[in-house]
Each structure stands twice: as structure tokens, then as C-alpha cells.
């Protein structure tokens, strides 16, 4: 079917002892650097796949059996980090566009949390994703991918995104492994703080 089975890197096997798969989702607009970020920390070359969902059109069900079906297809890519002998973390890069959120519950229910990757030249691309994550109750942080000449300081970014004060906002370089590691650690630190804050809501 294809020649990829000959690529050794895609087949780096997991340890046989691994039992626990975990997920973190990186959401961001087109070209913001999601795949680059995933590639920087992944132990495999990022792979891509897709999910499709067919749903009955809204509001047409009563029309004498004429059900209008629409198919939603969302492509996403992912990488992998073996954390220890039992746990493996999958990092998903996903587009934040509207149709994607139809599939959020099917694909990303149970995610540890999310990183919203933003480009200050197109901050408005992130508004919708942030709104949806809040709606889904998914904890997240925001990482500003530092493109050359990205002018705004982080306070201005926070204001432009109307981010709550307790949502971490950090700078990163999606090409740099250490920088991306810091982003992930910031997210998990944030999740840890939330989880130990008490019973939560």
C-alpha cells in the first residue's frame, strides 16, 4: 500500500512493559508550529491520521425521512514520549477550526490538558480554541511561539486573549527541544496545582 513500513523510525517499538497511554493536545491555527513543536520532543517522527464522523444534519430530521447527512473529517498529527517503563505520553497537534470540536469528545476525552500555541501576528486565530477549551472544561496553558519580530510583550498577549489570570502564559521556540519540554512541564505543573487545590469543582 505504501513504502512507509520500511521506515525504521516510525517503528521504534514501545517497551513491552508499557500499560498506560496518556494524551496532551496542542491546539493552534494553521502554520503556528504545532507539528514543529511535536517533532521537537517526540521519539518518533510525527505521524498523521484522521477521524471521520457522519452526522444527521441539524433541523432536517422531521422532513419526511429526508435526512441530510454531513461527514466531518479531521486530520491530526501526533508524536510520542516514553515517560517511564509504564507510561507513554502521546502529543497531538490539532487544528482549532470549528469542525474539529465536533470530534473533541470522541478523540480527546480524558486528555490531561491542552497547550494553545499562538502566533502573535494572528492572535485572533486562538480565540475560538480558548473558548472551546473553557467550554469543555479542559485545563490549558497558552504558549506563544516566538517568531522573529514578534513584538508584543506577554502582558499584551494576555490582554488580547482575555486570558484569566490563573492560566499560565509562556514564551517558547517550537523548534527547540528544551523550550518545548518547558512548555509541557508548565502545563503539567499547572494541572498538578489544580488537582491538589482541593476537591475542585
Amino acid at each position, binding site marked *: 500500500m505504501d513504502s512507509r513500513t520500511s521506515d525504521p523510525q516510525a517503528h521504534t517499538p*514501545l*517497551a513491552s512493559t508499557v500499560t498506560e*497511554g496518556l494524551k496532551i493536545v496542542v491546539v493552534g491555527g494553521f502554520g503556528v508550529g504545532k507539528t514543529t513543536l511535536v517533532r521537537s520532543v517526540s521519539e518518533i517522527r510525527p505521524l*498523521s491520521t484522521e477521524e471521520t464522523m457522519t452526522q444527521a444534519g441539524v433541523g432536517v430530521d422531521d422532513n419526511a425521512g429526508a435526512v441530510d447527512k454531513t461527514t466531518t473529517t479531521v486530520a491530526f498529527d501526533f508524536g*510520542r514520549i516514553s515517560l517511564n517503563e509504564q507510561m507513554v505520553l*502521546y502529543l*497531538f497537534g490539532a487544528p482549532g477550526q470549528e469542525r474539529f470540536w465536533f470530534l473533541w469528545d470522541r478523540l480527546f476525552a480524558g486528555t*490531561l490538558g491542552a497547550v494553545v500555541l499562538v502566533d502573535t501576528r494572528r492572535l485572533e486565530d486562538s480565540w475560538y480554541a480558548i473558548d472551546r477549551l473553557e467550554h469543555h472544561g479542559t485545563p490549558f496553558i497558552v504558549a506563544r511561539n516566538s517568531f522573529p519580530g514578534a513584538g508584543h510583550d506577554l502582558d499584551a498577549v494576555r490582554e488580547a486573549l482575555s486570558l484569566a489570570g490563573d492560566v499560565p502564559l509562556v514564551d517558547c521556540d517550537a523548534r527547540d527541544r528544551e523550550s518545548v519540554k518547558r512548555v509541557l512541564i508548565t502545563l503539567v505543573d499547572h494541572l498538578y496545582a489544580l*488537582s491538589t487545590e482541593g476537591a475542585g469543582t
Partner: protein
Amino acid sequence: MTRRHLDSEGPDRLYTLTRGRSSSKDTNLDLVTLIVTNGEPEPGMQSEHVRIMRMCRAPAAVVEISAELGLPVGVTKILLSDLVAGGRVTARNPTSARANAHLPDAAILKKVLVGLKNL
């Protein structure tokens, strides 16, 4: 990154692969459920089933299998559910991050932190 040509997989072929089933709702397989093969594939098995069994001699997540087969996640889950039901593969479902709790267990998060810091 690898771009697959999923569009070239006609709907007829997907229909045949899954013998007409289109819903994987009852499989309770997650994107990151880890699949491990038990034993060897046998002659006469569906070729996708054989590929999955070969691929999962070491654990592989549902999403990795989907990417390797070049099939949508839902179709992959249906194929996997056949193998699970037949005892051909074992599914290691995630325990820590269920959808009913918005926040995962602090003990799990601590292990994730240690793992990330050791990268």
C-alpha cells in the same frame, strides 16, 4: 511528517473492511489504548488483521495503528474490536485519565512531571 492519502481509500473499500459496520461506539477503545498481540496470525485471516497483529508484537496505541494502516481511527477501532473479541490481541486501556474526572490523579501527574524532567 508523513501525509497519507486517505482520500484514495474509497468508501467501498472501507465498507468491505468493516463488513458494513460504521460505528465503533461500543468498542470502548481510546486513541491511546495500547494494543498487544497474543500469538501469531493464522492463515486465512483478513489481511488488515494480520498487519495489526504483526505491528503489535510490541505495544502500539490505537492512533499509531490507524496511522500505520492509513485508515481512519473509527475504522481501525472496528478492526481492533474484532481482534480483541477473538482474543488475538489484548487492549490496555488508560486508567488514569477518564472523561468523568476533569483532572487526573495528582500521583499520575507527578510521575508525568518526573518523566518530562528526565527527558
